[in-house]
Protein backbone atom coordinates (compact mmCIF):
# COMPACT_ATOMS: atom_id res chain seq x y z
CA UNK A 1 0.00 0.00 0.00
CA UNK A 2 1.46 3.32 -1.04
CA UNK A 3 1.73 6.47 1.02
CA UNK A 4 -0.69 8.21 -1.36
CA UNK A 5 -3.39 5.64 -0.57
CA UNK A 6 -2.95 6.19 3.19
CA UNK A 7 -3.05 9.96 2.71
CA UNK A 8 -6.32 9.36 0.85
CA UNK A 9 -7.63 7.18 3.69
CA UNK A 10 -6.94 9.99 6.19
CA UNK A 11 -8.49 12.71 4.04
CA UNK A 12 -11.63 10.71 3.20
CA UNK A 13 -11.93 9.48 6.79
CA UNK A 14 -11.81 13.09 8.00
CA UNK A 15 -14.33 14.15 5.35
CA UNK A 16 -16.70 11.29 6.29
CA UNK A 17 -16.60 12.35 9.96
CA UNK A 18 -17.29 16.01 9.06
CA UNK A 19 -20.24 14.98 6.86
CA UNK A 20 -21.64 12.87 9.73
CA UNK A 21 -21.31 15.81 12.12
CA UNK A 22 -23.11 18.16 9.71
CA UNK A 23 -25.94 15.72 8.81
CA UNK A 24 -26.46 14.74 12.47
CA UNK A 25 -26.81 18.40 13.45
CA UNK A 26 -29.13 19.24 10.56
CA UNK A 27 -31.45 16.33 11.45
CA UNK A 28 -31.34 16.95 15.21
CA UNK A 29 -32.27 20.59 14.58
CA UNK A 30 -35.32 19.66 12.50
CA UNK A 31 -36.52 16.87 14.81
CA UNK A 32 -35.83 18.19 18.33
CA UNK A 33 -36.94 15.04 20.15
CA UNK A 34 -34.95 13.05 22.70
CA UNK A 35 -34.66 10.19 20.19
CA UNK A 36 -31.29 10.16 18.33
CA UNK A 37 -32.68 10.53 14.80
CA UNK A 38 -29.46 12.18 13.58
CA UNK A 39 -27.27 9.13 14.23
CA UNK A 40 -30.00 6.85 12.83
CA UNK A 41 -30.07 8.91 9.64
CA UNK A 42 -26.29 8.78 9.04
CA UNK A 43 -26.13 5.07 9.90
CA UNK A 44 -28.96 4.05 7.58
CA UNK A 45 -27.88 6.24 4.64
CA UNK A 46 -24.31 4.99 5.17
CA UNK A 47 -25.48 1.35 5.14
CA UNK A 48 -27.20 1.97 1.76
CA UNK A 49 -24.00 3.54 0.40
CA UNK A 50 -21.73 0.74 1.64
CA UNK A 51 -24.15 -1.91 0.34
CA UNK A 52 -23.98 -0.15 -3.03
CA UNK A 53 -20.16 0.02 -2.98
CA UNK A 54 -19.85 -3.64 -1.93
CA UNK A 55 -22.17 -4.62 -4.80
CA UNK A 56 -19.97 -2.96 -7.42
CA UNK A 57 -16.81 -4.49 -8.85
CA UNK A 58 -14.17 -2.06 -7.63
CA UNK A 59 -10.40 -2.28 -7.29
CA UNK A 60 -9.02 -2.99 -3.82
CA UNK A 61 -7.79 0.60 -3.41
CA UNK A 62 -11.02 2.24 -4.54
CA UNK A 63 -13.07 0.06 -2.23
CA UNK A 64 -10.70 0.85 0.68
CA UNK A 65 -10.96 4.59 0.00
CA UNK A 66 -14.68 4.91 -0.78
CA UNK A 67 -16.01 2.10 1.44
CA UNK A 68 -13.75 1.50 4.42
CA UNK A 69 -12.42 5.06 4.77
CA UNK A 70 -15.24 7.41 3.69
CA UNK A 71 -18.49 5.53 4.37
CA UNK A 72 -16.95 3.67 7.32
CA UNK A 73 -16.12 6.98 8.99
CA UNK A 74 -19.45 8.58 7.98
CA UNK A 75 -21.31 5.95 10.03
CA UNK A 76 -20.70 5.32 13.71
CA UNK A 77 -21.10 2.47 16.14
CA UNK A 78 -19.73 4.28 19.19
CA UNK A 79 -22.24 7.16 19.19
CA UNK A 80 -25.09 4.73 18.54
CA UNK A 81 -24.06 2.74 21.64
CA UNK A 82 -23.44 5.86 23.72
CA UNK A 83 -26.84 7.40 22.94
CA UNK A 84 -28.60 4.09 23.63
CA UNK A 85 -26.84 3.66 26.99
CA UNK A 86 -27.74 7.23 28.00
CA UNK A 87 -31.40 6.69 27.02
CA UNK A 88 -31.48 3.55 29.19
CA UNK A 89 -29.77 5.41 32.03
CA UNK A 90 -32.53 8.05 31.91
CA UNK A 91 -35.08 5.21 32.16
CA UNK A 92 -36.21 5.79 28.57
CA UNK A 93 -36.27 2.03 28.10
CA UNK A 94 -38.56 1.87 25.05
CA UNK A 95 -36.69 4.53 23.05
CA UNK A 96 -33.43 2.67 23.91
CA UNK A 97 -34.83 -0.69 22.76
CA UNK A 98 -36.31 0.92 19.64
CA UNK A 99 -32.97 2.57 18.81
CA UNK A 100 -31.33 -0.88 18.79
CA UNK A 101 -34.14 -2.76 17.01
CA UNK A 102 -34.78 -0.15 14.31
CA UNK A 103 -31.06 0.27 13.57
CA UNK A 104 -30.44 -3.47 13.30
CA UNK A 105 -33.50 -4.30 11.17
CA UNK A 106 -33.35 -1.25 8.90
CA UNK A 107 -29.52 -1.38 8.80
CA UNK A 108 -29.47 -4.79 7.12
CA UNK A 109 -32.41 -3.76 4.90
CA UNK A 110 -30.52 -0.59 3.91
CA UNK A 111 -27.39 -2.58 2.99
CA UNK A 112 -29.61 -4.92 0.92
CA UNK A 113 -31.21 -1.95 -0.84
CA UNK A 114 -27.73 -0.63 -1.68
CA UNK A 115 -26.68 -3.96 -3.17
CA UNK A 116 -29.94 -4.10 -5.16
CA UNK A 117 -29.21 -0.62 -6.60
CA UNK A 118 -25.66 -1.76 -7.49
CA UNK A 119 -27.14 -4.72 -9.39
CA UNK A 120 -29.23 -2.33 -11.52
CA UNK A 121 -26.37 -0.02 -12.47
Amino acid at each position, binding site marked *: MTLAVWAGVMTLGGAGAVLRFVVDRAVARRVPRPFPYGTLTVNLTGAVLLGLI*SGLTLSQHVSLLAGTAFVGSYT*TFSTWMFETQRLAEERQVWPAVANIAVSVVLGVAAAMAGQWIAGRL
Partner: protein
Amino acid sequence: MALDRRELTAVFVGGALGTVARSVLATFADPDAGRWPWPTFAVNVLGAFLVGYFTTRLLERLPLSSYRRPLLGTGLCGGLTTFSTMQVETLKMLEHRHYGLAAGYTAASITAGLIAVYLATALVRRVRVRS
Protein backbone atom coordinates in the same frame (compact mmCIF):
# COMPACT_ATOMS: atom_id res chain seq x y z
CA MET B 1 -26.95 26.42 10.45
CA ALA B 2 -23.92 27.97 12.09
CA LEU B 3 -20.77 25.89 11.74
CA ASP B 4 -17.69 26.68 13.74
CA ARG B 5 -14.54 26.21 11.68
CA ARG B 6 -12.49 25.12 14.71
CA GLU B 7 -15.11 22.53 15.58
CA LEU B 8 -15.14 21.17 12.00
CA THR B 9 -11.32 21.01 11.94
CA ALA B 10 -11.37 19.05 15.22
CA VAL B 11 -13.91 16.55 13.78
CA PHE B 12 -11.82 16.23 10.61
CA VAL B 13 -8.53 15.56 12.44
CA GLY B 14 -10.09 13.09 14.89
CA GLY B 15 -11.96 11.34 12.08
CA ALA B 16 -8.79 11.03 9.97
CA LEU B 17 -6.86 9.42 12.85
CA GLY B 18 -9.66 7.05 13.84
CA THR B 19 -10.17 5.98 10.22
CA VAL B 20 -6.47 5.20 9.69
CA ALA B 21 -6.44 2.97 12.78
CA ARG B 22 -9.59 1.14 11.63
CA SER B 23 -8.36 0.83 8.03
CA VAL B 24 -5.02 -0.68 9.11
CA LEU B 25 -6.91 -3.34 11.09
CA ALA B 26 -9.35 -3.85 8.20
CA THR B 27 -6.48 -4.97 5.95
CA PHE B 28 -6.28 -8.07 8.19
CA ALA B 29 -10.00 -8.81 7.70
CA ASP B 30 -10.87 -12.30 6.51
CA PRO B 31 -13.04 -12.05 3.35
CA ASP B 32 -14.74 -15.35 4.27
CA ALA B 33 -18.35 -14.60 5.33
CA GLY B 34 -18.27 -17.68 7.58
CA ARG B 35 -15.67 -16.19 9.95
CA TRP B 36 -16.10 -13.81 12.86
CA PRO B 37 -15.17 -10.24 11.73
CA TRP B 38 -12.61 -9.56 14.48
CA PRO B 39 -11.24 -6.26 13.11
CA THR B 40 -14.66 -4.56 13.01
CA PHE B 41 -15.76 -6.12 16.30
CA ALA B 42 -12.56 -4.98 18.06
CA VAL B 43 -12.61 -1.35 16.85
CA ASN B 44 -16.33 -1.03 17.59
CA VAL B 45 -16.09 -2.24 21.18
CA LEU B 46 -12.90 -0.24 21.82
CA GLY B 47 -14.49 2.88 20.28
CA ALA B 48 -17.63 2.46 22.42
CA PHE B 49 -15.46 2.29 25.57
CA LEU B 50 -13.46 5.36 24.52
CA VAL B 51 -16.53 7.46 23.64
CA GLY B 52 -18.06 6.59 27.03
CA TYR B 53 -14.85 7.59 28.77
CA PHE B 54 -14.17 10.80 26.84
CA THR B 55 -17.75 12.07 26.76
CA THR B 56 -18.46 11.42 30.44
CA ARG B 57 -15.18 13.09 31.43
CA LEU B 58 -15.76 16.06 29.15
CA LEU B 59 -19.40 16.57 30.20
CA GLU B 60 -19.14 15.80 33.91
CA ARG B 61 -15.53 16.22 35.00
CA LEU B 62 -13.63 18.74 32.92
CA PRO B 63 -14.28 22.43 32.23
CA LEU B 64 -16.29 23.11 29.07
CA SER B 65 -14.23 23.01 25.92
CA SER B 66 -15.50 23.73 22.43
CA TYR B 67 -13.24 21.38 20.51
CA ARG B 68 -12.34 18.37 22.69
CA ARG B 69 -15.62 16.52 22.27
CA PRO B 70 -15.69 17.07 18.46
CA LEU B 71 -12.04 15.90 18.30
CA LEU B 72 -12.19 12.85 20.59
CA GLY B 73 -15.85 11.80 20.51
CA THR B 74 -17.35 12.73 17.14
CA GLY B 75 -14.03 12.58 15.30
CA LEU B 76 -11.74 9.93 16.78
CA CYS B 77 -14.33 7.46 18.13
CA GLY B 78 -16.74 8.07 15.25
CA GLY B 79 -13.96 7.46 12.72
CA LEU B 80 -12.61 4.46 14.61
CA THR B 81 -16.00 2.72 14.75
CA THR B 82 -18.37 1.88 11.94
CA PHE B 83 -22.00 0.87 11.62
CA SER B 84 -22.10 0.40 7.84
CA THR B 85 -19.30 -2.21 7.69
CA MET B 86 -20.98 -4.17 10.48
CA GLN B 87 -24.29 -4.19 8.57
CA VAL B 88 -22.69 -5.25 5.26
CA GLU B 89 -20.77 -8.03 7.08
CA THR B 90 -24.03 -9.21 8.66
CA LEU B 91 -25.80 -9.11 5.29
CA LYS B 92 -23.04 -11.25 3.72
CA MET B 93 -23.38 -13.80 6.56
CA LEU B 94 -27.14 -13.97 5.92
CA GLU B 95 -26.59 -14.36 2.15
CA HIS B 96 -24.26 -17.30 2.84
CA ARG B 97 -26.87 -18.79 5.21
CA HIS B 98 -24.71 -18.33 8.32
CA TYR B 99 -27.80 -17.27 10.29
CA GLY B 100 -26.43 -18.19 13.71
CA LEU B 101 -23.21 -16.29 13.07
CA ALA B 102 -25.13 -13.21 11.86
CA ALA B 103 -27.38 -13.22 14.94
CA GLY B 104 -24.43 -13.90 17.27
CA TYR B 105 -22.27 -11.17 15.71
CA THR B 106 -25.06 -8.56 15.97
CA ALA B 107 -26.00 -9.53 19.55
CA ALA B 108 -22.38 -9.72 20.74
CA SER B 109 -21.43 -6.36 19.18
CA ILE B 110 -24.40 -4.57 20.79
CA THR B 111 -24.02 -6.28 24.17
CA ALA B 112 -20.26 -5.65 24.33
CA GLY B 113 -20.73 -2.08 23.03
CA LEU B 114 -23.31 -1.20 25.70
CA ILE B 115 -21.25 -2.83 28.48
CA ALA B 116 -18.17 -0.90 27.28
CA VAL B 117 -20.01 2.46 27.46
CA TYR B 118 -21.43 1.54 30.87
CA LEU B 119 -18.04 0.50 32.31
CA ALA B 120 -16.21 3.55 30.94
CA THR B 121 -18.91 5.83 32.38
CA ALA B 122 -18.77 4.12 35.78
CA LEU B 123 -14.96 4.36 35.75
CA VAL B 124 -15.04 8.13 35.22
CA ARG B 125 -17.81 8.71 37.78
CA ARG B 126 -16.01 6.66 40.44
CA VAL B 127 -13.31 9.29 40.57
CA ARG B 128 -14.53 12.20 42.67
CA VAL B 129 -14.53 15.69 41.27
CA ARG B 130 -11.37 17.45 42.39
CA SER B 131 -12.16 20.61 44.31
